[in-house]
């Protein structure tokens, strides 16, 4: 069995998007506490969100702000205290300062280390296990080989992002307000727009406090290899995407993973075309094959270079 998960930042997405493709949802936008309706900022919103996710029969994780300053720790602790008793299946933490705080307030709830937790080695995974970390998103720069090494040589589960725009950088301030000089009338309006950064043929997407890859990570052609490697926790990056994107990509991967698991022939070409049609800048393999993150290698090209 596998688990397919993604982040859902707020109630709007949770109510408006068809999320049947996903087995588990991380509630909250870990990049910005000011994101409109952010599940990981307001306990009332979170409580209703958790109730809805559980009623859908899915696993539900809370995702905490990735780079809290001391002043942020105050409201994060309040949020965690409010979350006591909620049927959460885990808490995603990107910041080492929050590890003990989560355990103090929520007991031995499983902790998932987020992508900005900078996990590169199995030795780090071993240390973090002692702090309650059960599952890790390795740093995006790691190759598939390194992910598998960490899985095989540490006591944690390893999540494998398979699609979407890779988080590349994060800040404590917002690109939109700081750099454009245009103070948005409200974050709702600003965050509903797509912000792109371009330099010659380079492209990045900004979601305010974080920069994402311009191209979409796509591992459709490699799912059989991932399944053969006994990887089973798959994740799709969807922060900043439209409802159509979240639904369509989720359904493609749900079906593709089922087929890969059962050894059935897949419809890779059709799925790739659908994925390309949803990507503004094309597809890439991220850092999985030891080259720069924006390249796309077909399995044929990869076997030639291997």
């Amino acid at each position, binding site marked *: 069995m596998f688990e397919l998960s993604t982040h859902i930042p707020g109630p709007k997405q949770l109510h408006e998007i068809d999320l049947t493709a996903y087995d588990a949802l991380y509630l909250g936008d870990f990049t910005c506490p000011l994101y409109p309706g952010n599940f990981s900022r307001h306990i009332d919103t979170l409580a209703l969100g958790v109730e809805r996710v559980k009623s859908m029969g899915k696993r539900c994780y809370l995702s905490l702000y990735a*780079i*809290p*300053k*001391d002043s*942020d*720790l105050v409201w994060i602790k309040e949020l965690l205290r409010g979350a006591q008793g909620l049927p959460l299946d885990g808490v995603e933490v990107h*910041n*080492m*300062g*929050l*590890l003990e705080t989560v355990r103090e307030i929520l007991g031995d709830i499983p902790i998932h280390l987020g992508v*900005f937790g*900078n996990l*590169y*080695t*199995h*030795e*780090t*995974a*071993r*240390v*973090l296990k002692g702090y309650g970390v059960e599952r890790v998103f390795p*740093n*995006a*720069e790691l190759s598939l080989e*390194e992910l598998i*090494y*960490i899985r095989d*040589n540490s006591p944690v589960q390893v999540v494998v992002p398979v699609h979407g725009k*890779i988080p*590349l*950088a*994060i*800040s*404590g*301030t917002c*690109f*939109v307000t700081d*750099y*454009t000089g*245009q103070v948005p009338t409200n974050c709702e309006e*600003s965050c509903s*727009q*797509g*912000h*792109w*950064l*371009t*330099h010659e043929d*380079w492209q*990045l997407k*900004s979601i305010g*406090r*974080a*920069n994402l*890859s311009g191209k979409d990570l796509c591992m459709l052609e490699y799912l059989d290899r991932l399944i053969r490697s006994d990887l089973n926790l798959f994740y799709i990056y969807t922060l900043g995407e439209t409802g159509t994107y979240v639904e369509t990509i989720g359904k493609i991967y749900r079906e593709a993973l089922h087929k890969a698991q059962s050894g059935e022939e897949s419809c890779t070409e059709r799925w790739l075309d659908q994925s390309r049609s949803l990507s503004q800048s094309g597809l890439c393999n991220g*850092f999985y094959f*030891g080259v*720069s993150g*924006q390249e796309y290698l077909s399995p044929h090209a990869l076997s030639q270079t291997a």
Partner: protein
Amino acid sequence: MAKLMAPGGTRRMAFSVLEAGADTVYVGVRGWSRRGSDTELTDAEVRDLCAAARAQGKHVRVVLNTMPSSEEVPLLLKKVDMYAGWGVSGFMISDIGSMVQVRSHFPDITIHVSVGAGLSNALEVRFYHDLGASVVILPYRMGIEDVRAIKRSIDVSLEVFLFRTENLDGIVCPGKCTMSSYFSSNRWLDHEGKDYFYGSANRGGDCLRVCQVGWEATADEREIDGKFGLKGNPKLWLQELSDYVQAGVDYFKVPGRDRSDELVRDIVRFYRKVVDDLETFPTDEVVTQYAPELEELKKRWASERRRRDDRLVARAKA
């Protein structure tokens, strides 16, 4: 009294900063620091430097702050063992697992948590201290109030950069950025089996400064006027130095392993005088006396930064 740490990006720079008054020189070693090999020393150079520093009663810190691959951790420990044997008393490290291994194998060594760890709050400082870190290097987005708060709550030595960003962080946190390797990466193994990732500061190659190229922005097809750098550039500072001394900062760190030997030597000489004078004279007098000299150094710093960024960006585009 706070110690002055200075960079040794080249053999010549390393020796000259000691002569200019640094208490400690920090050096990257090939493949293991967040700068490219242009500004790292060979093992033989580190050994010579250790002997010279020891003769002057000074210290050498070795920067091993890349995020290693899992399989490189034993090689990192081997390196620590060798450098410690030559008299290196402290290491700057980013990876948590490596840090714990180094502490376990070398209980008497000073471990500095590198800026590459990307700390953001006092609880995180405590986390690293509990794991055995002796010194924590604070990111330059933390201010004097953060220093005071940490010093009040945790018995840990603090190291701060002698430069700071003003107001804006930019959309890059030090130690939490992979934009450079997303656009450009080159990987090879050296004779010891060290895996180089040129294009990734995190993994042992230079950051190629793609944040500085002048990005054009659009919001839903609407262009936004201007070109934007994605990271605030820190500037050398003077005014706040006295406050940091009083707050109990243990190490002041001169940046610049990738700057010219002459500029770094002059900056170290400058801060040596300032730190010493602050012990004797009122802050206002010291600041007034040294402000013009700082302005000249800032100009040279900015000019060298532009040249460096252009050079690295050109490599990213090659």
